[in-house]
């Protein structure tokens, strides 16, 4: 197999895998994850139609602020990494667990194209579910005391940032899934242990996380809930947007290349 056949094979795998992923049992989790913010936003909208939004810590809530909070805490901090972990680690691991990887490897295509095709199917699947959810949340929340046109640049930046975040986390966990036998545990430890830990520690360790670069793309200010967090913000170093973009693209490219290499070279022993 030469390199020229990689892309057509990957597209064929993408075509088959997209439908499988969309209508799989795992998509129930995805549906709940992306549906919850929409339901929450609809509830807030209904509440705001008859009541004044509460004042928290002296700050009156409005739609654009709430939208920023939802994007920051629900999407950036939770939904995007969780989707990356559950889908990314499963790209190859599911085929190994189901003992169907042998059938894929017997096809006359490069092994790496299977991973690449599945990765693009993952990306298509999550982008097509997450981004419409964000758009719906935007139109439900922002008109509460805000204006659709005024906040539109933030929406456009959010959509781009989330798509890049899904791509980066998916690529990293595709690599984890291709290299480790129990990738899900490693993925969860990375997202909820390593990333949260290094981000709160001053120093250079945070540069070894995806969240560090992704946060620089968030157009909303990080919610400040205490003097300490304000001081941390004052001393934190945040990379410029262009640097973050370069790093995130490097993370995607490098992770996929390493994952492809791993799939090509690894001997998968199926448990009987």
């Amino acid at each position, binding site marked *: 197999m030469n390199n020229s056949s990689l892309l057509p094979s990957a597209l064929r795998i993408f*075509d088959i895998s*997209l*439908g499988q992923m*969309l*209508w799989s049992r795992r998509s129930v989790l995805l549906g709940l994850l992306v549906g919850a913010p929409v339901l929450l936003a609809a509830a807030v909208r209904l509440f705001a139609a008859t009541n004044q939004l509460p*004042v928290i*810590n*002296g*700050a*009156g809530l409005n739609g654009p*602020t709430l939208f920023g909070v939802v994007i920051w805490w629900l999407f950036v901090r939770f939904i995007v990494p969780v989707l990356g972990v559950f889908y990314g680690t499963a790209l190859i691991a599911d085929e190994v667990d189901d003992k169907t990887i042998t059938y894929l490897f017997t096809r006359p295509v490069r092994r790496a194209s299977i991973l690449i095709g599945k990765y693009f199917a993952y990306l*298509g699947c999550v982008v*097509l*579910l997450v*981004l*419409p959810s964000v*758009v*719906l949340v*935007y*139109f439900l929340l922002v008109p509460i*005391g*805000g*204006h*659709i*046109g*005024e906040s*539109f*640049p933030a*929406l*456009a*930046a959010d*959509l781009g940032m989330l798509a890049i975040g899904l791509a980066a986390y998916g690529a990293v966990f595709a690599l984890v899934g291709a290299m480790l036998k129990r990738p899900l545990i490693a993925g969860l430890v990375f997202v909820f242990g390593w990333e949260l830990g290094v981000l709160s520690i001053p120093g250079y360790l945070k540069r070894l996380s995806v969240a560090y670069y992704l946060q620089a793309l968030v*157009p*909303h*200010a990080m*919610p*400040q809930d*205490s*003097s300490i967090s*304000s*001081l941390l*913000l*004052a001393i934190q170093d945040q990379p*410029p947007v262009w640097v973050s973009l370069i790093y995130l693209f490097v993370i995607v490219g490098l992770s996929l290349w390493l994952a492809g290499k791993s799939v090509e070279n690894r001997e998968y022993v199926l448990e009987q």
Partner: protein
Amino acid sequence: MTVRTRYFVIVSLLVIVVGLGTGLVAYYVGFPTSAFFSRGGPDELRFMPGSASVIAYADVREVMASELRQRFRKAVATGAQENGQREFQNLTGINIETDIERVVACLDLSANGLGMGAGLVLARGTFDETKIEALMRQHGAAVENYKGKRLVVGDRFTPPFPGNDNGGAADPTQPQITPPPQNSEAFSLAFIEPGLVALGSRTLVQQAIDRQIAGGESAATNEELLSHVRPMEGGNVWAVGRMDVLRARAKLPDIVANQLPPITWFSIRGRIDGGLQALLSAEARDDESANNLRDVVRGFLALAKLQTSSKPEFQRFVQSLELSGTGRTVALSLDVPSQVFDAVGAIAAQPPARPQQ
């Protein structure tokens, strides 16, 4: 790809495209939620000079009726406020509280610099034109005809300031404010539309009449200005201005001017009701200047939070301060609850401490 997968892809893409398209149209055209913002700003902008450096707006009726104003009126400086309003009413016959609906003001520094003749105020409301004109004539103003509009000019106008209110007769013991005849900076007033009064220097009021008759270049055609005015929609008080022009005209000493952050535009949008919610925005010269400014503000916020940790009445206000903004924009939002005004009122009402003997 199966049929249901294809349908799913189409529906998802449709939601994204329709959402982005709607947002984009709203961003460029604007979805007015108020008739005052039909052109991307209040209608009065078409009478204001396109070279205006500062534009300010106040929904007087809303502000006057607000709970905050009522509390403020009861707590602080009741007498001083009413005296000021009475003086203005004696001078112009306009009752700020009942006659004026909203006010749009501008400062045009292109011609006269930072002088008396740089300001123009357009007030919309319900006015008794005959009474106002008669009252101003009684105080020494003259009426001219300018392109079919009656222009009340205070060339020999003696405003009834304290010690000067003697029914128009000159008081030999007090210095008189008597601008020279045909002074272009003389205070003038004209009803340029039914229910719309223009107050300001003779030149600016005449220019407003010119724009009302012939149209042409105005603040409403200045796209750069409008792009900063449009986001102000929703506030009942706001101001937008060019900081670089103000700084250049202010003729500050170099040592002071060099210390000021390199801001090109500034805007303040406030909403006064039970409390005060405001958004202060500044557009810096470049990304680096904006980052520096953000760092400075962040430092001050952290310091303020630490300083007010033992003062619960101010803590809520300081906690509401939120810094945001990307690129060249730096924004600070704040929410001042009515309790803060109560606390300030209580402090102001305390008798000054006696020096110890």
